[in-house]
């Protein structure tokens, strides 16, 4: 049995934040969960996927976040408790659905989890999704710990049904990826079937209907503010003239800092967990009793702006600060020492920062950037494209996935990236206004996610570029989630169909399409050369399973190779391919047989044919 299905209220378990969030959903009786995977949210859906194999829960990996939200919105409007999980930038994709769903509302509870990523550990930006609550007019909750995340999730579902609105459940990486001891609650039997009652004048958002619905939303928002005033997640701690207002993970740093600075008797802390709408009266009363107030929130001055507006309403002139050149930044994530220093500075507490060690005489340590795995098929494709395009002046828009790492030398393939699917759309623009050869790259899962409309656009508007679809048969980057192109039967999952990328490309009207196997180097280079010569939209589908996934499935991989005596030290293998299985020993190139996956690409490009399968070694 999956550990999150343990029915033992009160049992203490060591849970990752994302596991606690999933457990919270189960304790709330969630019956439908949808997602498109994205770090730092991925483990929530991974757990739901596993749980759905052995329980009543319906879970799906949807093609993108917009679809995921639409699926969940329909289920919730049929009275079934639903959850939709995504990373922060996924919310941008879902935003079209989100903003009008706020008008329509829900019947059964709907909780939308957005996992923000301050410092961009694994994201292209660090946007603060709390603004989506303001933009959409939806209530928002933010946990400060794993235990609270689990408990709050149950209340978020209740709140959603009470207000008949989706609730935004906003986390940050340090909530998702922190592990804590969590005390379990009761599991609730999910109600998996619902019913949709027709009421087009409430559900079909033509202008006349939406004018009514917007007014209704504002009424619900007033109600939400009253609930926020008395929410058990907006809590006051301590006594004193100095005030601190904080949210999410920052609260933990505040509590530790107040203790470290020994100012527990001087500070009152208002911890905000129900953060939209903010509790106006509670905050105004808090401000009245404080001499000065510091707002501690990672990201944008979301609370700060509103708190200052609340103060203005009451004519309060005390100092309220947060984002400031001498205090907190809008950049990156916070940490305990940073919060301690800012508290000490703002409240004038004398304090000697803890001394670290002198690092001035530490030699430069070689970097260890993440790289494409040994035997990764993307490396083979990038190599083949570089050879095929030799001498051409190129622009290579890339996309989001492992293959983004191809922008690093020596492959150096990747010139522009803004969001999921942008490789295809931007190729249209680059090829229209420059005379360079545009070659773009997109992964299989990303192609399904948002690549297809760009390709249709390219064909329709008669653009001129080559799109390489890197099809490794799985969503590799986020931990090997399936996507519509995956053969689910081969993975022992029943009840799925399979959508062919090749069929889609043909159906879109692409006239030049070739499918290559990137481990066959010469053939691949030839096929790519042909595609590059074609005027118009040409597509290459480069098919080879993710080597890491193949390994994880314990499927047979190629036998490792070794570098024989014939090696004359050209080092094309290292300089052009940069496969991490290579290393230098006594000035000779060697291959680590444990890392080598036997893809044979290096053997094919060695000018001396010196790289041989290990079984041939005498």
């Amino acid at each position: 049995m999956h550990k999150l299905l343990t029915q033992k209220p009160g049992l203490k378990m060591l849970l990752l934040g994302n596991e606690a969030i999933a457990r919270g959903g189960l304790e709330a009786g969630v019956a439908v969960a949808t997602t498109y995977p994205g770090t730092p949210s991925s483990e929530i859906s991974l757990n739901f996927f596993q749980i759905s194999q052995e329980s009543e829960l319906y879970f799906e990996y949807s093609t993108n976040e917009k679809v995921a939200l639409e699926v969940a919105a329909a289920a919730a409007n049929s009275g079934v408790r639903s959850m939709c999980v995504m990373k922060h930038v996924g919310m941008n994709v879902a935003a079209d659905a989100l903003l009008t769903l706020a008008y329509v509302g829900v019947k059964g509870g709907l909780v939308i989890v957005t996992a923000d990523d301050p410092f961009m550990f694994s994201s292209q930006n660090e946007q603060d999704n709390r603004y989506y609550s303001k933009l959409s007019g939806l209530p928002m909750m933010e946990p400060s710990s794993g235990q609270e995340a689990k408990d709050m999730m149950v209340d978020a579902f209740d709140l959603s049904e009470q207000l008949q609105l989706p609730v935004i459940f906003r986390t940050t990486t340090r909530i998702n990826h922190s592990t804590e001891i969590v005390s379990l609650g009761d599991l609730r039997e999910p109600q998996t079937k619902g019913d949709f009652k027709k009421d087009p004048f409430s559900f079909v958002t033509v202008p006349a209907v939406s004018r009514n619905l917007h007014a209704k939303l504002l009424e619900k928002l007033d109600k939400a503010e009253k609930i926020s005033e008395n929410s058990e997640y907006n809590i006051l701690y301590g006594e004193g003239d100095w005030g601190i207002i904080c949210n999410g993970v920052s609260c933990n740093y505040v509590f530790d800092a107040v203790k470290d600075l020994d100012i527990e008797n001087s500070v009152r802390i208002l911890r905000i967990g129900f953060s939209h709408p903010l509790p106006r009266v509670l905050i105004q009363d808090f401000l009245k009793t404080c001499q000065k107030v510091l707002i501690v929130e990672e990201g944008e001055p979301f609370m700060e702006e509103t708190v200052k507006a609340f103060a203005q309403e009451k004519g309060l002139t005390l100092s309220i600060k947060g984002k400031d050149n001498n205090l907190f930044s809008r950049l990156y994530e916070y940490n305990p020492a940073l919060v301690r220093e800012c508290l000490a500075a703002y409240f004038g507490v004398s304090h000697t920062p803890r001394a670290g060690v002198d690092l001035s005489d530490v030699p430069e340590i070689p970097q260890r950037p993440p790289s494409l795995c040994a035997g990764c098929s993307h490396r083979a494709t990038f190599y083949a494209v570089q050879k095929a395009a030799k001498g051409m002046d190129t622009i290579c828009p890339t996309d989001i996935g492992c293959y983004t790492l191809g922008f690093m030398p020596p492959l150096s393939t990747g010139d522009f990236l803004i969001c999921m699917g942008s490789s295809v759309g931007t190729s249209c623009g680059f090829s229209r206004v420059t005379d360079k050869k545009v070659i773009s790259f997109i992964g299989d899962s990303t192609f399904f996610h948002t690549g297809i409309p760009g390709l249709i656009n390219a064909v329709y508007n008669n653009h001129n570029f080559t799109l390489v679809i890197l099809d490794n048969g799985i969503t590799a980057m986020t931990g090997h989630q399936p996507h519509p192109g995956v053969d689910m039967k081969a993975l022992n999952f029943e009840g799925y169909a399979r959508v062919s990328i090749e069929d889609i490309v043909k159906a879109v009207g692409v006239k030049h399409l070739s499918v290559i196997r990137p481990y066959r180097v010469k053939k691949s280079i030839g096929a790519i050369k042909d595609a590059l010569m074609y005027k118009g939209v040409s597509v290459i589908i480069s098919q080879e399973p993710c080597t890491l996934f193949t390994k994880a499935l314990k499927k047979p991989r190629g036998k490792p190779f070794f570098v024989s005596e014939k090696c004359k030290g050209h080092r094309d293998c290292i300089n052009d391919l940069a496969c991490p299985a290579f290393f230098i020993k006594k000035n000779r190139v060697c291959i680590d047989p444990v890392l080598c996956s036997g893809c044979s690409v290096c053997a094919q490009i060695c000018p001396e044919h010196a790289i041989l399968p290990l079984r041939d070694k005498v």
Partner: protein
Amino acid sequence: MKPTRLILVAVGGQGNLLSSKVIGESALLSDIPVRMSEIHGMAQRGGVVESSIVFGDAKSTIISDGEADVLVGFEPSETLRALNKCNPSTVVISNLAPLSPFTVTVGSGVYPDLKKLQSLIRAKTANLIAFNAEILAREAGNVLAVNMVLLGALIQIGKIPLTQKTVKEAIKTKTKKAFVKSNLKAFDFGFSLAKKISE
């Protein structure tokens, strides 16, 4: 209970997430407050993986620069890289078997000299316990048990509030059955060697 702060640094694939899991489970068994944080992301793509573990009465799950009480490095150059987390009272444990980064293979970086690396760390911190954990792991029957060897050494130095008994209990129940025997052996090897080094 006064907080104790522990940092584990490793190269993706060295199993530091499993050792933090064992540490966390053993804290749960001993009823000791524990909070941990780790950055997954590119763990399997050869990057650096860092876990922070805070025992005792603190709410934060991450550790600021200069504030680690104990640093365990699974790879010598990564131990050195994490020196910014240390202060003069920090105790450091390090594996001495290098995993040369690819940047060294392509000649864009130089691997630090192991002797110099040790003397640097020793001079700046309270103590350095350094040995080749890979040899011990291999002797224990599983070259991948470097994490368990280092865990043994960590428990031996007595800087974190966990006992040998509960950690072994956690190894028995939370690591893969096929590896329990070699994991326990590796733990013992690390424990004994750290004891020998400290004496």
